[in-house]
């Protein structure tokens, strides 16, 4: 019974998390070959392009926190969602990012004239791969971001479980023990070599 539960858990987790397995594998290769993208797009982050200009006429009382200002500006732009909360610059200008997996926004609020500049980052494959691979954590107060963080945690647990349950399933199959041990041994020796050598 234990063995069957383990096999099914191994399989259903893999079927559910299949898109994440593919995403992490492809994005790892993209990051491993980052020089290819430098050839395609050049060095440095992708440039931002102007989308529109708006105004936030009410302004903010002195000492208003970045958290309050950024959230209010995004609501006024109808862009509420995960975002950064950096401190304003010395002249009071507030520049922050509104996250978006495909094309993030950069919002610039100038208190002197109440203008808000909305820009979007140009799409680049390497940026998409980086964002997908690195997005995690429970810092944002939005349900969907929290759900993504839960899935990232689930993936971590699943990866360890796939490894350990795979070991168990291999040990149960007497016919594959010899060659399995050879594979396992080669992998462990190569890993240990690199651990010490590099």
């Amino acid at each position, binding site marked *: 019974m234990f063995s069957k539960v383990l096999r099914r858990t191994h399989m*259903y987790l893999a079927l559910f998390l299949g898109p994440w397995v593919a995403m992490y594998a492809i994005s790892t290769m993209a990051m491993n070959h980052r020089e290819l993208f430098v050839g395609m797009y050049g060095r440095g982050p992708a440039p931002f392009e102007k989308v529109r200009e708006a105004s936030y006429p009410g302004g903010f009382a002195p000492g208003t926190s970045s958290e309050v200002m950024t959230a209010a500006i995004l609501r006024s732009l109808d862009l509420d969602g995960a975002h950064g909360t950096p401190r304003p610059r010395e002249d009071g200008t507030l520049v922050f990012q509104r996250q978006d997996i495909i094309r993030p926004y950069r919002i610039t609020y100038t208190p002197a004239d109440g203008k808000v500049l909305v820009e979007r980052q140009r799409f680049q494959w390497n940026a998409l791969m980086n964002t997908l691979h690195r997005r995690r954590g429970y810092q944002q107060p939005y349900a*969907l971001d929290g759900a993504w963080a839960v899935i990232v945690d689930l993936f971590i647990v699943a990866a360890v479980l796939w490894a350990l349950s795979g070991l168990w399933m291999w040990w149960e199959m007497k016919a594959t023990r010899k060659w399995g041990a050879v594979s396992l041994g080669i992998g462990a020796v190569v890993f240990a070599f690199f651990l010490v050598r590099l």
Partner: protein
Amino acid sequence: MNFPHFNRRLHLYLSLGLLPWVLMYGVSSVFFAHPELGRGWYGDRMQWQTKAMIAGVPDPNFRVPAPGAPPEEMRQFARILLNTAGMGGEVESSSFGAYRTGPKQINVYVYRFLGSKQIRFDTEKQTAVVEEKQFRWDHFFTGMHARGGFEQDGVWQYVWGVIVDVASIGFLLWLATGLYMWWTLGARTARAWGWVALLGGLASFTVFMAKL
């Protein structure tokens, strides 16, 4: 050996061979997803211990890169500085890079899986301090997770980059071979619940891509 048999064996032996990497990527991801764990154990700041002082740089061809120098010039500078500091062996076996950390300071950071060092070079006095980083488990795992690419010197670093690719292809092959094994399972219930899991995952991923 027929195809289903080959498929099952490929899934199994590939997993066993790459098991250390699966475990390493899995465990290390904990410290990326929850960096507060490492900070809670070791604090926010990295601890460095001074190992050596170098009074001067004897190489007559030694030229300090100007601020804003291109990465290759900084890298070449790092190689010379490592040799001067008696750390020439690190060029082939560590990931290293030179970074200007102030108007009069360039740091050469030398990363290895089991320990990192840095050289703090004073560009005005042309003196250097070699420091060793205190070992931290969180940095050990995150460093190993993030290591890759083909920009570093030395053949073994190149081979590690190839292994990162092999592990990535391995993940894709597990997915493909696993899908085939599920599809060829005789049990009806497993087929039906498998569809639920597969479509649930695809639908969730699509929603995240559209809304996040």
